[in-house]
């Protein structure tokens, strides 16, 4: 019997229409169809979802943890970028 490792997939679920898909975890599955099925069975058992995306984990390109000073530190003193100075009308809904 040939034992190949089962590929890993990142799972994103959309809780309600209008909300973005959010990363919620990962599943092992041999292919995309089975990954959607596994994601449904593992992550939507309590009515959390109206839509599922799965992406091969190998397709995710991540930032280098060693770069975090140059990538993220410079924003620390730029509080004017936070949209806390605006009133958002209720009608706008999810932002």
């Amino acid at each position, binding site marked *: *019997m*040939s034992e190949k490792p*089962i590929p890993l997939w990142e799972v994103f679920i959309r809780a309600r229409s209008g909300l973005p898909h959010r990363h919620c975890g990962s*599943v*092992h*599955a*041999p292919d995309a*169809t*089975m990954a959607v*099925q*596994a994601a449904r*069975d*593992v992550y939507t*058992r309590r009515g959390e979802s109206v839509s599922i995306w799965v992406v091969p984990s190998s397709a995710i390109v991540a930032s280098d943890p060693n770069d975090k000073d140059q990538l993220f530190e410079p924003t620390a003193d730029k509080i004017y970028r936070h949209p806390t100075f605006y009133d958002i009308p209720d009608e706008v809904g999810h932002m």
Partner: protein
Amino acid sequence: MTEAHRHIFPYVIALGDDALVLGHRLSQWSSRAPTLEEDIALSNLALDLIGQARLFYTLAGKLEGEGRSEDDLAYFRDAAAFSNTLMVELPNGDFAHTMVRQLLYAAFTHPYFEALATSRHPGLAEIAAKAVKEMAYHVRHAAEWVIRLGDGTDESRQRTVAALDTLWPYVGELFEMDAAEQELARASIAPDREQLRPIWNATIDRVLGEAGLDRPERPPTGPTGGRAGKHVHLAEMLADMQSFARAHPGAAW
């Protein structure tokens, strides 16, 4: 009480028994499935079926009118009083056996509940309308697995062929209707099982085709008697399933 209504209690019990017994068999996979993902998936399927059984038993208890609850019907009847088919009580075997059984069962039950959703009995129609969505997923889940097992490694293919050979004869009982159920079918309360055979055939042929598996040549008929309470493996399963409720009668959970 009309002739049709006199037969409806045992009919509803049989629907509940198939669901409960297969649901319990699936629950026995818990912590034993090949992967964590599939372990959860099998528990989900089990809970769908046990949920269906609860609805059927609750309805049956009302129809009977003697105050029996879903728990009374599930935990305080002996094997001879159960009328599930023999296929659902077979011990689980390997993963291929379970997936093939799920496919054979769901490919029948999905169109069956579609038809039952138009029953003239509103209580049955309501349960069926809920269950039909669950069974649509059961067909899909089992089909995807059978396709991959049949078209997978030599070993997975061998095991799937063996499971198909073992389970094929048991399919006949899914299509059986005794005189009482035929009466219900004439009254448009129960579907005519035989009319669903083309749909069952189409599903099975599509999945076996994609899996690269040959459809067994013999007709799908064989062991029978489950509907009449003649069981093979059920008593042993019930001894385990019912032991807790019987040790603590009246307990609530």
